[in-house]
């Protein structure tokens, strides 16, 4: 092996060990600080050096060029690094400066139901920018695992849970008596006009609650309402505390993209199912509510460089499987074939 090749391989080893070490250090920093660290100037120099090293490696080692699997996996690494740089925030800034391409790298779009919005709060920039089209939210909803659960705690530290279904009962034992769920409300409302307040379910809104009775030995059953969103106060004399919980199964935003008054794309986005349009991905990130009602929070992310990264992934994965699995499998078949082919020859 020539001196240059040896040096290149040593440089590769140092670069790989350095990156492994930095990754371990980054794990102690937490995601946000690690991201800032890996995008800092010294690391930008490192990324460029890594690309240069890979390219020089491919150019200098014949085997890396001649063996397709090796070429594929090393070239895949270059593609991933280039794509990641192209799609990074500094990459966006550079393209704006050089080519005048002005794209929002990442931001947040808050939108109410039945409203149209094109303003994006740019991440880490305290800046509001406009998209070249608008997003309309037709409906936003949260889906839950049904039934929810009623959690019960006693003052002496014991706890129970039961499915939040009408008709369910649970004997807590001793003085604590039996808990029964009488009704399940999706949108709890109470009418106080009568002598006896009347609880009812009003279609449309959302205020999930349970009507629960506690039947203690020697006293009349006590009725109470347990709310999902407003846990309320616990009476200091009450031997039991309760809470109603429903796990979220999904958040769904029914979106339309409107350009020049025309709907050009539509999708019900959920977690794991973003909408892709006009060079951006729209993700269901979160939701919130204020005095105007519930609103959906969408994350808007530029798709720059993504194809290169995914292409690089395909090359890398294809390359390593071909190199380590494919060649071994071929070899196995070849030896197997040779042995069976030889048998007639041997018998002659």
């Amino acid at each position: 092996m020539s001196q240059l090749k040896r040096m290149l391989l040593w440089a590769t080893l140092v670069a790989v060990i350095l990156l492994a070490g930095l990754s371990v250090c980054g794990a102690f920093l937490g995601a946000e600080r690690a991201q800032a660290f890996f995008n800092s100037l010294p690391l930008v120099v490192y990324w460029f050096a890594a690309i240069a090293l890979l390219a020089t490696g491919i150019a200098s080692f014949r085997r890396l060029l001649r063996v397709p699997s090796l070429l594929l996996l090393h070239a895949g690494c270059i593609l991933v690094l280039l794509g990641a740089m192209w799609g990074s925030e500094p990459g966006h800034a550079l393209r704006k400066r050089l080519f005048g391409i002005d794209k929002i790298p990442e931001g947040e779009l808050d939108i109410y139901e039945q409203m149209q919005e094109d303003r994006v709060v740019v991440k880490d920039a305290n800046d509001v920018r406009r998209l070249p089209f608008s997003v309309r939210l037709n409906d936003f909803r949260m889906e839950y695992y049904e039934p929810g659960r009623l959690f019960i705690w006693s003052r002496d530290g014991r706890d129970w849970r039961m499915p939040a279904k009408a008709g369910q009962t649970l004997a807590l034992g001793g003085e604590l008596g039996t808990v029964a769920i009488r009704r399940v409300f999706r949108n709890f409302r109470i009418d106080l006009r009568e002598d006896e307040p009347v609880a009812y379910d009003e279609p449309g809104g959302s205020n999930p609650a349970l009507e629960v009775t506690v039947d203690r030995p020697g006293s009349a059953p006590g009725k109470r309402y347990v709310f999902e969103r407003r846990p309320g106060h616990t009476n200091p004399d009450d031997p039991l505390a309760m809470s109603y919980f429903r796990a979220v199964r999904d958040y769904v935003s029914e979106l339309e993209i409107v350009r020049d008054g025309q709907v050009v794309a539509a999708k019900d986005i959920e977690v794991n199912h973003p909408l892709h349009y006009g060079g951006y991905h729209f993700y269901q990130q979160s939701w919130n509510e204020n005095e105007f009602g519930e609103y959906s929070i969408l994350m808007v992310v530029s798709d720059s460089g993504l194809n290169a990264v995914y292409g690089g992934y395909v090359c890398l994965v294809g390359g390593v499987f071909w190199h380590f699995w494919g060649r071994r499998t071929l070899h196995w078949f070849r030896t197997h074939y040779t042995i069976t082919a030889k048998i007639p020859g041997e018998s002659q």
Partner: protein
Amino acid sequence: MEIKYTIQGLLIYITMAAYLPAFVATIARRTRAGRVLFFAGFALAVISFVYRWIHVRHVPLQNLFEVFLFLGVACYPISWFCRRALRIGGQWADMLIGAIVLFPAGFIFNAEPMQLPPALQCWLFAPHVAVYMLSYVFMLKATFQAGEHLLNRRPRVEETVIPPEQATYELIAIGFPLLTLGLVLGSWWGKLAWGHYWGWDPKELWSLASWLVYVGYFHWRHMSGTKHPRINSLWAMMGMLTILVTLLWVNLARIFAGLHSYAT
């Protein structure tokens, strides 16, 4: 540590009770008995995994309990494949690995079924975890081979197997593509669920570090060949150390709280 007084717990304990005597029988050179017990343990591990699947009604690879249950299943087919196709010895180690990986499932991790949070409801979830787990079993086997090489042990029972240093390389060569695929599938899923194919999360960074340790291993071995075989084996063991941290520490330690912490 707690004993699970459930059918699931019982199945895990019986599986362990088959894997451990299989290991003892094999090192006592009762190879046949060892293999029969190992197979019986595997059959029980499959029943245990399927039972869990039916119980939670999704592919049971969501938390550490389920992941270790899966590892308990995977070690037998991998052992069989390595012995038959790659001529790699150390079946005793596979039996021990089976018992070791089931220990945390049986005694440490919480088996309470969870409702899948939205981010985990993705078709990439099961392949991402499964592929990683398979690669971890190969890398763990490689570590045992590296250990055999460092301790200068001769293969115990199987005479027709390849030498431990070479076996270490072969096993890493089989496990590495799976490790790469696991990393890439995780990155793709991260893009779908969180908007970024790379989030600089502690778990991601540890998994990148472990992948890089193996990249370094290949290049080092390419450079030095078998001139420094002990360093080759030590390097392979380093890889396993980073994998262990990726798999356990990150999920358990508070200092690494991040997007992957739900898996505790």
